[in-house]
């Protein structure tokens, strides 16, 4: 193998370049680890976890025939407990027809419009969150594994640039809080490392289930930065980078957060 080819391979397998401030893989912690014991107990016990109501709805929706094709998710995919196992752990995934990655919510809507011939579900709607929570639950405990091949790299890089660049009136970057200052208190609240391990999740502050995009808007709002419209490619890139940053960590969906 020529030296150039070898170098190229190394770069490909390393995904995006790790920066000096990256958290060492072994020191990564889920948001769960920063929570009070009562909140952890809520997530640990399915009968106390309010997000399980959405999972139950999702299970019903999985079976329901929709759209002019009159097909349910189950008609194509069968039992979600086997066919959807591990799926959420590898999203956002590359979509060849679109030549870009799509996240799980967008993937669900692609099936709705193209297979079921139904209208897409609105972002943050009860139905979309319920299906995403139900599908996500099938990957609980499995390690996050994002494809970081040549097709994905430009999107990963864009997500990393957004994570490390300063933005907003307060001139902060995501990395300043989540890489450099995790574990510190921001106005009394612990700053987590910002891993997307539990979405969609029940946030006590929201009093409802919400997507990762909704969570990202909360941080952007705090930074006094422009928030993108739901579904914007910028969010998908950022979600992709966050999932890559959390590679190997366990899926907790549907989690609970303060």
């Amino acid at each position, binding site marked *: 193998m020529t030296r150039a080819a070898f170098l190229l391979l190394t770069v490909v397998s390393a995904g995006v370049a790790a920066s000096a401030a990256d958290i060492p893989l072994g020191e990564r912690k889920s948001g769960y680890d920063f929570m009070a014991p009562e909140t952890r107990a809520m997530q640990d016990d399915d009968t106390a976890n309010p997000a399980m109501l959405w999972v139950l709805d999702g299970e019903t929706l999985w079976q329901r025939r929709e759209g002019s094709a009159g097909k349910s998710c189950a008609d194509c995919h069968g039992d979600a407990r086997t066919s959807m196992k591990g799926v959420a752990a590898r999203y956002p995934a590359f979509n060849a027809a679109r030549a870009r990655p799509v996240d799980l919510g967008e993937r669900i809507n692609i099936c709705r419009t193209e297979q079921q011939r139904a209208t897409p579900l609105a972002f943050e709607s009860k139905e979309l969150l319920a299906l995403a929570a139900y599908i996500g639950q099938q990957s609980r405990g499995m390690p996050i594994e994002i494809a970081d091949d040549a097709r994905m790299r430009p999107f990963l890089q864009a997500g990393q640039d957004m994570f490390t660049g300063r*933005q907003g009136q307060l*001139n*902060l970057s995501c990395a300043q809080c989540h890489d450099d200052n995790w574990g510190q208190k921001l106005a009394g609240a612990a700053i987590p490392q910002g891993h997307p391990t539990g979405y969609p999740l029940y946030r006590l502050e929201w009093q409802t289930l919400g997507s990762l995009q909704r969570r990202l808007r909360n941080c952007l*709002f705090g930074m006094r930065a422009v928030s993108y419209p739901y579904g914007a490619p910028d969010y998908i890139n950022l979600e992709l980078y966050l999932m890559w940053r959390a590679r190997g960590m366990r899926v907790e969906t549907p989690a609970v957060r303060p």
Partner: protein
Amino acid sequence: MLAAAIASFADDATSQEQVRPYTVIGDAIPESLTGAKGDAERGRGIVVNRQVGLCLLCHSGPFPEEKFQGTLAPDLKGTGARWSEGQLRLRIVDASRLNPNTIMPPYYRTEGLTRVAPAYQGKPVLSAEQIEDVVAYLATLRDERAP
């Protein structure tokens, strides 16, 4: 009346003024941004307000009544003993002139920022008057010991 209420709400969210020129000498801005001395009591109100000063997101300080304070930055007690008013002014106006990697937001700068939310575009975080009030307040924090 409704229009007036909305206008005043917009007014106190951020200042409407442009950034005025100032002169940095060494690590300080010796001259008041407004030409007048600030009001320390108003300054305290700005520092503890989580929508206006935002200081306690990151800093702690001698505010026993404030339950939720930050640990990302030095405690504010004793800052008046450590720094002159001019030094405090520069640290609030634009701390990145002293430490390019600082996490402390530039409170009186509108240039060189990216993706600022529309409501805040072209506006500094605090007005010149508010900065003078904060400087006047910090200058009174002369006790380095715990409150």
